[in-house]
């Protein structure tokens, strides 16, 4: 990718394209932004990095008029403005590509692009203009999409292009992209950066949000770092390094190696042969994956989010069905498309599962902690008295585990919703580890969790391993994978593209593997949808 950064940061007269002063914003008890200040110079690509939950999206949503700041000031081209709504932001020439796309799947690309800038009460004229404009943008920036395709039929990369087109067609001069590469294949990401370069050439100011340092270093002119709702540093990209940014992001030296003894590898617990998983849209998400996990070892799966790790984990847990291949547990139970199992049976075989998304899967946030404590174990004898549930047993168990895992506050009657993210994660861990599983499936164990809790969780996982459990760990945090795993598998586009012992692993090599070349830039046909009758 191009990296000829012309230092266009004008020194004297030119005011910043965007200046934010003292922005604060709370959501109820959560302070998402605290006294944030930011200056973005015109015609540059400005990166913002920060961990999950640092407040990046919130800040940009305020700039875009989607949320309203509790305090602070916004200046565009040096003039103070109030951005009361997205409309106001659009009128000021600000465009945004949201982390979660804001597209209407059932409408055509053209309709989506026109939404909000229809050019009159009737569509005919606007449609013609928009078509012409799309053709022009496609020529100028290589942003090609079929205007008549249904958005729902497009690949993610193409959908993102539609989002960019939406912003451009509204004449934006300042383009905000919120984690644009999280869902992209490496090729798609490279294409994106080419497009951003082209935009910058034509004077568009770009704010690029990400937590991937590689992208920041490769694509931006300057960078700001957020942590826990605050802006902690501003750097010119050439003057900083990945190490410095990483430290600023997390507020400590990264890559803390977990102290762990040599693994005592036992027998094979999980043996996967050509496991294939197909989603509801008939797309293969996991493609003929084979590997083993033994007792007493932690096997980490590294990869960019969306490359099939989640589906693999869910298939192993019995939540998704296989469409091909098989895996066997303990060498006794073989699971395949013909002989499926469900989470209930999986638990019976000694499998525990810490799901990636605790809010949507691991917890029923409206239930009190003790009811969450029996989630998945609701049929167990120890929690049932004949026909009735034994509530007292559940409460006592839950209270004891809360003590052990240092869940705060240690009150089994509080609804799960009122615990903080880290404590919620501990509730899930406590429940799953308490069963002393033979095989532990763990997804994103420390997502959104504070540092104290991270260390605790890491140590707990290692302790499980040392007690002889087989642990399969999925995480998008490379550091986490590297510090915890005994053996590392790298997944890309649904396949395992590399395997190595942790001792032999270095981040560069894994990074390359994660960005593994895969054939296509997904040029999916756009089947003629039955549009407006």
């Amino acid at each position, binding site marked *: 990718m191009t990296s000829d950064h012309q230092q266009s940061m004008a020194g004297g007269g030119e005011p910043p394209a965007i200046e934010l002063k003292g922005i604060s914003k709370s959501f109820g008890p959560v302070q998402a932004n605290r006294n944030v200040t930011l200056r973005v110079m015109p015609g540059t690509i400005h990166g913002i990095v920060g961990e999950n939950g640092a407040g990046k999206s919130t800040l940009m949503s305020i700039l875009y008029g989607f949320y309203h700041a509790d305090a602070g000031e916004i200046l565009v081209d040096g003039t103070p403005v109030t951005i009361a709504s997205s409309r106001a932001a659009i009128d000021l020439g600000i465009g945004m590509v949201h982390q979660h796309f804001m597209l209407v799947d059932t409408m055509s690309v053209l309709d989506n692009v026109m939404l909000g800038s229809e050019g009159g009460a009737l569509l005919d004229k606007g449609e013609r203009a928009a078509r012409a404009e799309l053709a022009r943008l496609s020529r100028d920036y290589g942003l090609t999409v079929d205007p008549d395709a249904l958005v729902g039929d497009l690949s993610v990369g193409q959908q993102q292009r539609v989002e960019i087109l939406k912003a451009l067609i509204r004449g934006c001069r300042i383009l905000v992209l919120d984690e644009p590469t999280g869902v992209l294949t490496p090729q798609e990401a490279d294409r994106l950066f080419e497009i951003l370069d082209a935009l910058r050439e034509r004077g568009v100011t770009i704010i690029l949000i990400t937590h991937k340092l590689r992208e920041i270093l490769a694509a931006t002119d300057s960078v700001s770092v957020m942590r826990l709702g605050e802006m902690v540093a501003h750097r010119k990209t050439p003057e900083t390094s990945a190490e410095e940014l990483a430290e600023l992001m997390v507020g400590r030296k990264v890559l803390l190696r977990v102290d762990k003894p040599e693994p005592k590898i036992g027998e094979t617990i999980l043996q996967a042969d050509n496991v294939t998983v197909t989603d509801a849209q008939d797309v293969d998400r996991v493609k003929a994956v084979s590997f083993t996990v033994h007792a007493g070892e932690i096997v980490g799966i590294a990869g960019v989010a969306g490359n099939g790790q989640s589906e693999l984990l869910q298939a192993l*847990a*019995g*939540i998704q069905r296989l469409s091909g291949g098989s895996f066997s547990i303990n060498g006794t139970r073989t699971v395949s498309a013909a002989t499926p199992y*469900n*989470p*209930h*049976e*999986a*638990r019976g075989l000694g499998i525990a*599962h810490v*799901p990636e998304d605790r809010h*949507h*899967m*691991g*917890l*029923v*946030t*409206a*239930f009190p902690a003790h*009811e969450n404590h*029996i*989630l*998945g174990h*609701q*049929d167990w004898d120890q*929690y*049932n008295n004949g*026909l*009735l*549930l034994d*509530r007292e047993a559940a409460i006592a168990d839950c209270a004891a585990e809360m003590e052990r895992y240092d869940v705060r506050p240690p009150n089994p009657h509080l609804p799960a919703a009122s615990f903080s993210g880290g404590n919620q994660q501990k509730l899930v861990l406590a429940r799953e580890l308490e069963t002393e599983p033979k095989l532990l499936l763990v997804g994103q164990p420390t997502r959104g969790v504070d540092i104290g809790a991270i260390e605790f969780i890491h140590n707990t996982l290692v302790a499980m391993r040392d007690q002889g459990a087989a642990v399969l760990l999925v995480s998008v945090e490379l550091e986490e994978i590297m510090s915890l795993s005994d053996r590392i598998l790298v997944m890309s586009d649904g396949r395992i593209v590399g395997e190595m012992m942790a001792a032999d692993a270095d981040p560069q090599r894994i990074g390359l593997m994660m960005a593994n070349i895969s054939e296509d830039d997904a040029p999916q046909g756009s089947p003629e949808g039955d549009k407006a009758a």
Partner: protein
Amino acid sequence: MSQPIKLPKWVDVGVIPALNILAALAVSALVILALGENPIEALDVMLYGAFGYDEAIGYTLYYTTNFIFTGLAVAVAFHAGLFNIGGEGQAYIGGLGVGLVILALDGLLPWYALLPLAMIGAALFGGIWAAVPGWLQAYRGSHIVITTIMFNFIASALMVYLLVNVMIKPGQMSPESREFAESAWLPMAHQMFAVIGIDVSRSPLNLSFVLALIASVLVAIFIWRTRWGYAIRTVGRNETAAIYAGIDPKKTIFWTMALSGMLAGMVGINEIMGVQHKLLLNFTAGYGFTGIAVALMGRNHPIGIVLASLLFGTLYQGGAELDFEFEQITRDMVIVIQGFIILFSGALAYMFNPLVARLIGRLMPARG
């Protein structure tokens, strides 16, 4: 139905519902005022009509019985995140089940032997009438609100067909079945009291009231104290978590709806076996719809539902009294009040939350 503002529990289950009902009653009072009558007087008449004499109490509790069953039916479905608007049709078809059992066996068996069979009939018929929409929701993704509405109409057409063409007592004009043998009637309250030497006036109140109370207790235990209730609540709150926990949401939806329909079908025990003693048209008289209001008001908890049913029993029976006593007010005023209760306790349930939160904030500034 997310709850936007967090309030202390006593406010949430005590103050807010009370405010909602007060608002509904206040608006109803305005309507009565607009009709040129005195709402206070109307309330007085209504209370007298509902509780002033023993027959009135009997009627009030008789209505209450129906509402408990339909309210429980709606609530059980709510716990699984399902909105069952079909209580009316399920009660109707449940009554058909009761009627068929008794018409087949009434000369042969006494009521106490018939009762369990009639309950099975009610549960089977009502249950199936709800389970089909449940199945369609679970396995075919058909919106349960729409399908249950459709099933109400289908039930109504079916019952008309059966009563007019098949079950009508020959030589009779009203589309009604023959009357059941007296030995098949559920004991009436006044008969039961007479046995223990207490003389009360005749009213439609019968043994089913006791059954309704038992059903409330059983539902409470089932929902909060059994693994199946746990499964239902998990599916209702978070279907993904249910799958994760090894609970099959589809099966759960199917069986929850079946259970919901069974409860609604029990209206047939009260109405057909207890009161009408024959099958007739429209004996459900809107009880199924009222069940929605009852469940909303009772916050889907059996205790709340029994209380809300009592309130609606009072409204229904007291409403009849209104009709007798006032020139301008008819019984349909009860429907109006019911509508306002659904509006304020259901659709506008959280309208007062910000207000109350602010008030509490002012009164107890120390709150975290």
